[in-house]
């Protein structure tokens, strides 16, 4: 890919092909932790770390070990172990090296293991046949898209929840409808001619 194609790929991963609003990955943390703005940003930052590192590690493992020995069918099992141990390592590293960051991200890190955006991106970079640089750019921009959307959504949600919502729609139902309207807006970014 040329440089300009990489830029286009990055922007479409952030906006048009957004992980949450278009690919439906990571919907659980999207609805779960978007209640407060601070926790949404914390989760988003932790996800950037984990998605980028785990996609790169999975890419290396796939092309250096699984493919040469012909064990591609083990990929799901290997990736989930990579993600689980990576989350654990990042947690221990942050606790020791950057205690301030650990205190703000700490509680979100264990939750990331079961965030399907992480496993989904690791699977995607291999099935799309990216090289190492493309994997890096794609996973970083996917994760940036996650942070971007979860931040905007948390600010919207705090406004929506203060409003007079019918009882049956309180909580998740109205949040899903808000997300649907956001998805419509984000899908329309695709009409821009980049």
């Amino acid at each position, binding site marked *: 890919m040329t440089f300009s194609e990489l830029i286009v790929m990055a922007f479409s991963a952030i906006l048009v092909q957004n992980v949450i609003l278009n690919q439906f990955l990571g*919907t659980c943390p999207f609805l779960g932790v978007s209640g407060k703005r601070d926790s949404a940003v914390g989760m988003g930052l932790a996800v950037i770390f984990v998605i980028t590192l785990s996609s790169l590690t999975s890419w290396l493992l796939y092309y250096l070990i699984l493919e040469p020995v012909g064990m591609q069918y083990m990929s799901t099992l290997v990736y*989930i172990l990579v993600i*689980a141990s990576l989350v654990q390592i990042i947690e221990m590293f942050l606790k020791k090296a950057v205690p301030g960051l650990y205190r703000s991200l700490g509680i979100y890190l264990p939750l990331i293991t079961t965030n399907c955006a992480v496993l989904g991106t690791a699977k995607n970079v291999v099935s799309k046949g990216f090289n190492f640089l493309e994997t890096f750019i794609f996973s970083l921009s996917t994760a940036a898209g996650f942070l971007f959307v979860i931040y905007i959504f948390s600010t919207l949600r705090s406004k929506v929840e203060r409003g007079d919502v*019918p009882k*049956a729609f309180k909580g*998740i139902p*109205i949040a899903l409808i808000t997300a*649907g309207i956001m998805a419509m807006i984000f899908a329309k970014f695709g009409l821009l001619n980049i």
Partner: protein
Amino acid sequence: MNKLTNFTKGLWRENPILVSMLGLCPTLAITVKVENALGMGLAVLFVLVMSNLFISLIRHIVPDQIRIPVYIVVIATFVSMVEMVMDAYVPDLYSRMALFISLIVVNCIILGRAEAFASKHNWLDSILDAVGMGLGFTIVLILISLIRETLGTGSITIWGDLALNFNKHNSPFFSEFYVSPPAAFILLGLILAASKAINSRKEVRSK
């Protein structure tokens, strides 16, 4: 009686999608065709039953501190089996939702049932619980995909060539909007609101 409630609670009272709101990613993503919903529902049902059974059998052997990694490995093993079987026998269906089949590993419903139920109950209760939850999940998936496929494309694809088609005259009643991502969010929001309304009305009546 107790055995029966273990089975039936997954269908409505503790339905994984409508009440616990777990496993929303596949619910939103693959419900554009009834066929997809059936395939995904059966795959989840299989993984759920097998992992609940195994986890319940090994629950006394596994040390408490490492139980989550062990559960994930058990689940991932069964998911890999499903992937291989579907790739071999229903390649079209598999290629359409390959990503979401492998994402069953991180589906909160399965890990949630392992942690909340199978690790504390015997194998028979665990299987009943898994079958109830799996069927509850499948039924809601089919309901959503029926609405989306009928309104979106004017057809109902039950399995392979077995399909109904109403959209003979390209009627404007059917709109592609319903199979687009935004519609998935809005429709699921409406369905969750409806189930909440029904449940709260039931509560009022029982008082």
